[in-house]
């Protein structure tokens, strides 16, 4: 928003390299601030929302309604002694928390919050975003391996297996979008959605797959097996404390925000609101959608138990992968036939429901509607 204004005002007066530096710096600062503020806000939102779902009050001591609680937490965590356990690989151990913070940060740099408001507005931003999503696994493995702890190593191994599995349906679910729009630029996708309707209606199957696979990359329940606090205590960051731990902690939340922002850009029309409500600035809508999606993630976390490792893998390979392939074929066929948008939406919605229901049947006993076991049997001989 500021950058176009800068370009418009000083564009002729300043040399190109200076202009690029200034706009880049402003964008970077904006993204950094947004990421950190979001991470802090996320902690408060999640704790408050989950506690209300659990009939508790949640944080309400520090500041009004506990709003300052994240700051108090941050101060506390940063103030803790940074313990480096014996036998760790010091370089890798120290580097991991900083690298892990990069992935959500860079993702935010690519997300267009308003028309032309992405810091880095390249033509292949979709590809970059997907690549950055997979970047998160490297520091997790670094942390898990360097910590010299079996639990963290187990968490790291689980994380790699999971991310590799879920990256495939994640990417494949986006192919349908690219087929339709013919562009790898996130902004083009949003513009297409504003013109033709949101992708959550046009390609609901892709939306479901992306949501599930995206949440699997966030290490949050029901797919937080790499962290699994009831099994692995804390997983890959078990040996971290102090500031380094706070980076892991903040990353978890900003990563959720990054994925929420991506989903709203890819499937919920980005800054677009449809024909109504164009008075409110575009960026507000974008942020609103992101926060709402974050609340959905919190909601699932408060409800669902964790899946086991093999079940999670089976879900990715047996359920998400074939469905995403079918989705690509169907979308390509529709594009070839040149069907009108409303027909595509209806066909795809029906297809999504039918496919999901039928495919879970194929998966075997897990998909069957459960049988009720009988527990009360009257004794044959009366007492």
């Amino acid at each position, binding site marked *: 928003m500021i950058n176009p204004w800068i370009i418009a005002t000083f564009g002729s007066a300043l040399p190109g390299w200076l202009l690029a530096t200034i706009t880049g710096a402003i964008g970077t600062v904006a993204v950094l601030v947004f990421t950190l503020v979001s991470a802090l806000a996320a902690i408060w939102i999640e704790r408050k929302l*989950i506690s209300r*779902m*659990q*009939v*508790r009050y949640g944080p309400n001591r520090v500041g009004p309604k506990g709003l300052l609680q994240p700051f108090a937490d941050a101060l506390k965590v940063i103030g803790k002694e940074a313990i480096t356990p014996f036998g760790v690989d010091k370089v890798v151990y120290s580097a991991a928390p900083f690298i892990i913070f990069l992935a959500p940060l860079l993702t935010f740099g690519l997300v267009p919050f308003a028309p032309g408001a992405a810091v880095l507005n390249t033509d292949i931003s979709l590809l970059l975003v997907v690549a950055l999503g997979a970047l998160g696994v490297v520091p997790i493995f670094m942390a898990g391996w360097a910590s010299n702890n*079996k*639990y963290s190593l*187990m968490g790291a*191994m*689980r994380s790699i297996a999971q991310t590799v599995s879920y990256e495939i349906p994640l990417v494949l679910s986006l192919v349908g979008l690219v087929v339709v729009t013919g562009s790898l630029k996130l902004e083009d996708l949003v513009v297409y959605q504003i013109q033709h309707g949101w992708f959550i209606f046009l390609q609901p199957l892709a939306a479901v797959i992306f949501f599930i696979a995206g949440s699997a990359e966030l290490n949050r*329940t*029901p797919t*937080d*097996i790499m962290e*699994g*606090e*009831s*099994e*692995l*205590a804390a997983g890959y960051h078990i040996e971290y404390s102090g500031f380094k731990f706070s980076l892991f902690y903040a990353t978890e939340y900003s990563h959720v925000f990054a994925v929420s922002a991506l989903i709203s850009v890819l499937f919920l029309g980005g800054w677009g609101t449809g024909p109504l409500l164009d008075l409110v600035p575009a960026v507000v809508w974008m942020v609103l959608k992101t926060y709402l999606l974050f609340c959905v993630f919190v909601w699932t*976390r*408060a*409800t*669902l*138990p*964790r*899946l*086991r*490792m*093999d*079940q999670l893998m089976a879900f990715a390979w047996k359920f998400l992968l074939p469905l995403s392939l079918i989705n690509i074929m169907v979308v390509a066929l529709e594009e070839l036939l040149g069907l009108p948008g409303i027909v595509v939406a209806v066909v795809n919605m029906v297809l999504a429901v039918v496919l999901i229901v039928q495919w879970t049947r194929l998966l075997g*006993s*897990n998909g069957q*509607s*459960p049988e*009720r*076991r*009988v*527990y*009360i*049997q*009257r*004794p044959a001989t009366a*007492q």
Partner: protein
Amino acid sequence: MVTSNPYMVNMGPQHPSTHGVLRLRLVLDGEQVLRVEPVLGYLHSSKEKLQEEHTYLQTVPITDRMDYLAAMTNNLGVSLAIEKLAGIQSPPRAECLRVIMSELQRLASHCFAQGVFLQDLGAWGSPLMYFLREREQILDMFEMVCGARLTYNYIRPGGVSQDIPPQFTPAVNSFLDTFPAKLDEYEELLWKNEILRARTVGVGVVSRELAVSAAFSGPMLRASGVQWDLRKQDPYCGYQNYEFDIPVGQTGDCFDRFMVRFYEMRESLKIVRQALDVLPPGEWKAAVPIVIRPPAGEAFQMIESPRGMLGYYLVSDGGANPWRFHVRAPSFINLGALNEMLVGTTMADVVAIVGSIDIVMGEVDR
């Protein structure tokens, strides 16, 4: 050819899902358990030795500290054992109050067990909180009756320590009115949850033979298909007068153990309702001296605690203190077949299986 080396992981004593200080030494191959060795005793306080220096009345509050989630039934067990040893007969009102209290205790204990089991499966606290909310009402009632929320010291040799206060019956009635609907809701919610079923159905199967041979008891035994409940098979405190069923599972997996607890809660509600209806007036405590001196001899009394068959073996030499005070702790004995249950499963199943046993370390280590 990929080869792997087994490695050892210490699960506990400080671990989020070992219910206190249970320590499992797991030998793993990747995620798969090759060998498991439970290491107990981190909470051992030699209560059996301690009891030998107490009078019989003083042993009762110490038993509160063993199974701290079901202290009422602990009190009941030791009181019945002392009564058996000393030949004391408790009045009918006390018998009826004991039934009410131990069934409410079963409800409270099962509520906690269900919530914690779901927490172990990774359901981030919500079910636990809902179950704790229900349990809280029962604890409030107990506090009303005996002044404490966990360590009751209420059931005594010869009866109960005090009569129920007038506000107790309305409180129980309102609880009985609201709780069954919630129980139905939670059950409906949980039994067909796909993730819960995926994690529990067919996991940690205990065969009928193993359950009997390893002397499992309580929901552990009944989930394996053995219809054995001391309230029916060897009734104490007049349990034969109440109408109730014994839920029995068929496969003996974690899901059965989970559901058997649900059904037991429903039966407990039935018993409480019946017992409140027939609560006889009169004395609530037999005339028992402060220092009981039973004749020399021995007594073994088992009751059905929420966790299984809780037995007390008392030997008296005719003096004021027990010569030997042994507790058959159901949690301790239910841990006896961990090797058979855990080997071959994965790390995540270990948590589910240990959670479904429902142990209390205070009772395991005593």
